């Protein structure tokens, strides 16, 4: 599609730390400074949620993801839901309909089979809801103490909608940036479910398949849909920074339009966390042409679960790679990528 992205990032870290997996700057350094140069090829250099490549007259999308969430179950979902929805969603934001998914299990000796059965059933339900077949799999068992009960890897293969040409090179100043609904639910749910904070609330993870939403956008917009990404680790802020970098543009967000449920906002205020940095498992960011923004919002809002879709901001020409938040009263701030995991601030 586009010319391969060339990166000047080098990876000089001596050891792997938790930030390398958190989806922010350290992850990016690792991927762009080590993996991409080592595996150098045009498909990988696109750095999209799924690899897209031609197969006969079709374009196929392929993605893989490992799930290591702790705790295994949390309000609104569990690792089994995430393992299917996450992979389906990576295909969905690549403009694809999923065909098949594989599932690999890394089980810790001593895992209660009740838990395994519960998670496998959750996967089956999530797969049925997304209309995808779990076609193959693998099982490994590691010694007690070597895994948090259960890790799951899933790989998904899908067919890309032939009407679409998604990619950062299509994004131009004036394009509108949408988000599919309220942000931060998943990350805050996990933070609270770990039980370390002694805070209680009725917030639930937003884990779900976003396939129906992306389909509605595809149908309503066709080629006017330019770019999509699901806002998982690192949150919407990270996705917007990737957009700004990859497309060589800046993004301006209207602070007052950022959709956050009161309960999530309250928790974020209390913990000193920016909702834009909090992970989601059922929301995505899309870029559409200015003329099609209203149509896009109507199409999303017509789908159950898409009622909260809003225009978040717009693409401008520069400064390249920057994301700004602008409040109604005229204050502007830089919205940066997350460094490591969001941590509560107390003092």
């Amino acid at each position, binding site marked *: 599609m586009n010319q391969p992205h060339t990166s000047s990032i080098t990876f000089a870290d001596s050891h792997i730390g938790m930030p390398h997996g958190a989806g922010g700057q350290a992850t990016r350094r690792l991927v762009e400074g080590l993996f991409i140069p080592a595996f150098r090829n045009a498909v990988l250099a696109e750095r999209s949620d799924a690899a897209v490549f031609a197969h006969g007259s079709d374009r196929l999308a392929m993605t893989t993801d490992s799930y290591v969430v702790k705790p295994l179950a949390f309000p609104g979902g569990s690792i089994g839901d995430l393992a299917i929805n996450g992979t389906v969603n990576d295909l969905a934001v690549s403009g694809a309909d999923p065909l098949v998914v594989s599932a690999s299990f890394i089980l810790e000796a001593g895992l209660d089979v009740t838990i395994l059965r519960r998670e496998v059933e959750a996967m089956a339900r999530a797969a049925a809801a997304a209309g995808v077949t779990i076609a193959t799999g693998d099982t490994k068992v590691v010694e007690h103490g070597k895994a948090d009960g259960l890790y799951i890897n899933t790989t998904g293969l899908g067919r890309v909608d032939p009407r679409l040409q998604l990619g950062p090179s299509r994004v131009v100043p004036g394009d509108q940036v949408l988000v599919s609904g309220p942000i931060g639910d998943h990350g805050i749910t996990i933070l609270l479910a770990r039980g370390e904070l002694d805070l209680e609330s009725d917030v639930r993870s937003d884990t779900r398949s976003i396939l129906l939403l992306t389909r509605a956008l595809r149908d309503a917009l066709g080629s006017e849909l330019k770019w999509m990404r699901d806002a998982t680790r690192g949150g919407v802020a990270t996705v917007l920074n990737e957009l700004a970098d990859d497309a060589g543009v800046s993004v301006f967000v209207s602070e007052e339009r950022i959709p956050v449920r009161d309960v999530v906002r309250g928790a974020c205020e209390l913990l000193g966390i920016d909702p834009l940095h909090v992970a989601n498992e059922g929301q995505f960011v899309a870029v559409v042409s200015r003329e099609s923004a209203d149509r896009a919002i109507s199409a999303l809002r017509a789908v159950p679960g898409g009622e909260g879709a809003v225009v978040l901001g717009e693409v401008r020409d520069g400064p390249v790679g920057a994301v700004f938040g*602008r409040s109604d*009263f*005229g204050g502007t701030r830089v919205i940066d990528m997350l460094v490591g995991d969001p*941590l509560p601030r107390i003092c």
Partner: protein
Amino acid sequence: MKFVDEFRESSIVRKVADEIRACVDPSRRYSIMEVCGGHTHAIFRFGLADLLPPNIDLIHGPGCPVCVLPMGRIDEGLEIANDPNVILAAYGDMMRVPGSRGSPLESKARGADVRMVYSPLDALRLAESNPERRVVFFAIGFETTTPATALTLLRARERGISNFFVFSNHILVNPAIRALLEMPDMRIDAFIGPGHVTTVIGCESYRFIARDHHRPLVVAGFEPVDVLQSILMILRQLHEGRAEIENQYTRAVPWEGNPAARGAIDLVFEPRESFEWRGLGAIPASGLQLRDEFGAFDAERHFGVTRRAVADPAEARCGDVLKGALKPHECPLFGKGCTPERPIGALMVSSEGACAAQYNYAHLKTTLTVGASDRDVATPSVDR
């Protein structure tokens, strides 16, 4: 959200900003220090400097506890955590703060048992549910967090818990302000007072600032309207030649503070002769240690911690930034060797540190001002 939305309401923010613009004397400059890191964060988070006339300089003060904590203290805490029998409990703020050999988070990744807690009571609970382990709470913060540590220690004593320890790094805000005021090249005209600290220590404790140093201080809340209103109150004092302690944050701060919380602090803690502040050096009577009566809970005594003095690199100009003598971006390390991900100097450590706040929220805005085509967005650079 109640008590938040009203104080972020655009029309009110704009109105106060208009009043500030109408009030300033264009022929002079104003250097106003916000002492508290929470205010620094709010100023950058909401882009408040954009709303101010260019001759008001906001100077970001020393009120970020993790920023001013010397690296040696972090090393000492992590040395305790290297004992496999120890669980080190710390606030989230501490987790990424680097000592000379890495941060608590990195220690944890290397195998130390480091847990993030929301309150010292959570650490005490850890001690109760792990009677075979020793639990050390890495206590940090100003008078805002000290009462919670004090009450936890009182409870630990009441329950006769013997495997709970506190590594005290609690510090006091007024000795730091006094130290700044006594520096020869100090350029601060007035202070925005720390809202949360004052809920404990009360407004009267700042009297010396007005009386001895003739500088106004206005205790402020943390929303946009609060910060701007406190700046307006300061401008009025300066113009009328007044130097008084005023309270903008009346919805949270009683004038007398919280005597019960101060009582708990006094019961458990006493001032150290001197405590080292990163960027400011040693300040007399600015840190708190456990009293002898609580010596059994004192991690420093129990673990026989060896004092480590780790000097910041000489090129790091943190002290000058704190005094208002230098803007964060004027430091030779800013954004080059020293970034939030790999901080060298104190102020790059937490998002409330002046340099990290500037780096995260504002460093690109200089470019924006120079290169933007859209004037309504091209607001004045905050690092004037």
